[in-house]
């Protein structure tokens, strides 16, 4: 079912059914986006559920001037950023701890190099990290990232470039030490 059909169903009274379809359509994409942001499965699950609860409470105000998936990505990204900043205020960047625990995480199957890459990405400032993940892993066009993060495309391109250079330099450092 397309987004338009889901919204039509929602507005015609089939709210629960429409929302269930919306969750079905977007659950995996949103989960993987959030998971790359927060790294831990349980944290990702919490953020994903919060994202859908917020979407449910504000779907009747969705005007349709953005695509449904950009709107959902915006909620999911904000939820992840809020989670990360909460962790930061509780003392330190816990996603860095989560990143350093990746190799022993039962829900992480990557090799040493993938663990290193995610550990390095976790060192980026949260908003820059969101730009990097959306562009690097999801290959989302800048135009859509701009809608998700409500930033100009020019600023995003610069931000991604800086993030990529930092990741490259940190990866090189890590690999020089390890290999």
């Amino acid at each position, binding site marked *: 079912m397309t987004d338009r059909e889901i919204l039509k169903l929602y507005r015609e009274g089939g709210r629960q059914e429409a929302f269930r379809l919306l969750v079905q359509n977007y659950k995996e994409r949103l989960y993987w986006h959030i998971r790359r942001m927060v790294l831990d499965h349980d944290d990702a699950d919490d953020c994903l559920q919060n994202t859908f609860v917020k979407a449910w409470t504000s779907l009747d105000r969705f005007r349709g001037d953005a695509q449904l998936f950009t709107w959902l990505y915006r909620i999911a990204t904000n939820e992840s950023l809020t989670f990360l900043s909460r962790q930061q205020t509780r003392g330190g960047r816990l996603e860095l701890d989560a990143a350093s625990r990746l190799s022993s995480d039962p829900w992480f199957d990557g090799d040493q190099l993938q663990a290193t890459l995610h550990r390095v990405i976790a060192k980026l400032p949260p908003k820059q990290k969101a730009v990097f993940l959306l562009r690097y892993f999801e290959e989302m066009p800048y135009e859509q990232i701009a809608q998700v993060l409500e930033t100009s495309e020019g600023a995003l391109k610069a931000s991604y470039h800086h993030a990529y250079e930092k990741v*490259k330099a940190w990866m090189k450092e890590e690999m020089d030490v390890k290999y």
Partner: protein
Amino acid sequence: MNEPIDDLLSRRRDAEQPFRVPEGYFDALEDRVMARIAMEEAPETGRRRVWTVIKPALALAATFALIFGMGYGVLSLTQTLKRGNGTPEAPGYATTVEEWITPASLINYYEMDAQPVEEEIDEETLVNYLASELSFTQLAEIYAQANLK
């Protein structure tokens, strides 16, 4: 590990997803999300609902009471100072005895001091008192006025 870092980064992007989820996680997700939404939308208990409704009204009433109390306090203080009971620096403070003792305050003072006459005065005492205090002419005038009424 001589592979250029750019090639490595581009290869890693296409690599298989390294994260895993517990088995059946996505299958049960819709039900869990809908259950959570139903839980959050469940009506609140009666007592909590009443408190939720009353709380803002109480806060508003308390604010008004506080503002009214403060306003009343300031006005009372201002009135007290204006009446001259304040310090010498305050406006309205009487600087001389003449200013302090007004006709009204004198009348109040004597009225306060006047004791009611409780013992009976007989006619003879009254006549003797009038005869000693007033002249014959004054007595005649009083008599004439009394008879005219």
